[in-house]
């Protein structure tokens, strides 16, 4: 078995030491730091991008919040305006209605009064007419002169029968 032949042991150990130490030093000093910087750079880049993405997201959320706030505010304002307008209109309408009511009432009461008055007048006229007619009739039929007071008394007692 050639592996157990000590002839080349020293040579193999020597070259192994030379090459392995060279490899170790080279990797330690040159290759591995290079790869490490690349990996670190990439990690930094990723972190940076992630943090900026986070920042942008925060900003977007803030803007969204602002927009929502403004929308809410605008809604409230419009609600307020609508309410105010409705109230004002209602007040206006009710005041106009009440004034109209008053007018109407006044007119109605005036009319009633007038009616009453004219009724009274009519009644008086009717009384007078009745008195006159009665006077004339009684005068023509008989020669009895009736005074107005006597006639009035008679009319008053029979008034219920006219109405």
């Amino acid at each position, binding site marked *: 078995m*050639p592996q157990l032949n000590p002839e080349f042991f020293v*040579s*193999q150990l020597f*070259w192994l030491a030379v*090459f392995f130490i060279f490899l170790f030093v080279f*990797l330690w000093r040159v290759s*591995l730091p290079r*790869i490490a910087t690349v990996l670190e750079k*990439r990690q930094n880049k990723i972190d940076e991008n992630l943090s900026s993405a986070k920042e942008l997201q925060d900003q977007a959320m803030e803007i969204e919040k602002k927009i929502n706030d403004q929308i809410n505010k605008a809604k409230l304002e419009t609600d307020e305006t609508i309410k105010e307008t409705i109230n004002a209109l209602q007040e206006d309408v009710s005041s106009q209605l009440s004034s109209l009511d008053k007018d109407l009432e006044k007119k109605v009461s005036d009319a009633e009064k007038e009616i009453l008055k004219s009724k009274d007048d009519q009644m008086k006229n009717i009384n007078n007419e009745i008195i006159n007619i009665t006077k004339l009739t009684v005068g023509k039929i008989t020669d009895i002169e009736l005074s107005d007071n006597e006639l009035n008394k008679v009319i008053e007692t029979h008034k219920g029968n006219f109405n």
Partner: protein
Amino acid sequence: MAAKDSPLKQFEIDPISNIELGGYDISFTNSSFAMLITVLVITLFLTLTVNTRSIIPSRMQLISELMYNFIAQLLSDTVGDNGKRYFPFVFSLFMFVLIGNMVGMIPYQFTFTSHIIVTFALAAVVFIGVTILGFINHGIKFFTFFYIPGVPFYMHPLLIPIEVISYLSRPISLSVRLFANMLAGHTLLKVFAGFVVSMPFFTGVFPLAFIVALTGLEILIAFLQAYVFAILTCLYINDAYHLH
């Protein structure tokens, strides 16, 4: 030493150029050449692919990063935060064994990890390093590593020697595991390759198909053994920090 067509002939070392230093023969051999190729592949690949240092990696750069993250993850899983200091060493070890195994899968190419002296040297570095680390971290208390708490007292005379032996056998198990896997795999491939030639007519196709399948398995083993080597190193480092 081996016969001309022995399956073990592939493990023979041939000097490419003879060098002597202080009376020792340190010839540059085919084994050294395989190590050179391995080191060149690793350093060039890891350097060139990450050359642009682009944030969005190319496919090749991604492979380097994946290897980096693979070992970094392994270390942080087993050792935790203490492990970061040993990352370059564990990474070098992993890459050296992995690419050494992979270079060995190239036909006619020498596999230096199939030599016990190489794997034992790597394992010994790990073992000695971890032992020193244990003494640095815990001082003389490191010996309590062999004392298992919560065991009946009369078991200790039995358990402590077992623990000591298992600790001392770590470099052997670590090195023999890799060495034996590589040796067995390449020997098996060679044996079946011999069948392809020696079997009559077209029947050589069957061992050939088997070689193809076995090559896939060997590539898997090449990765797996490098991974095992690295993860055991991580576990030993962890032991040096946390005694039981």
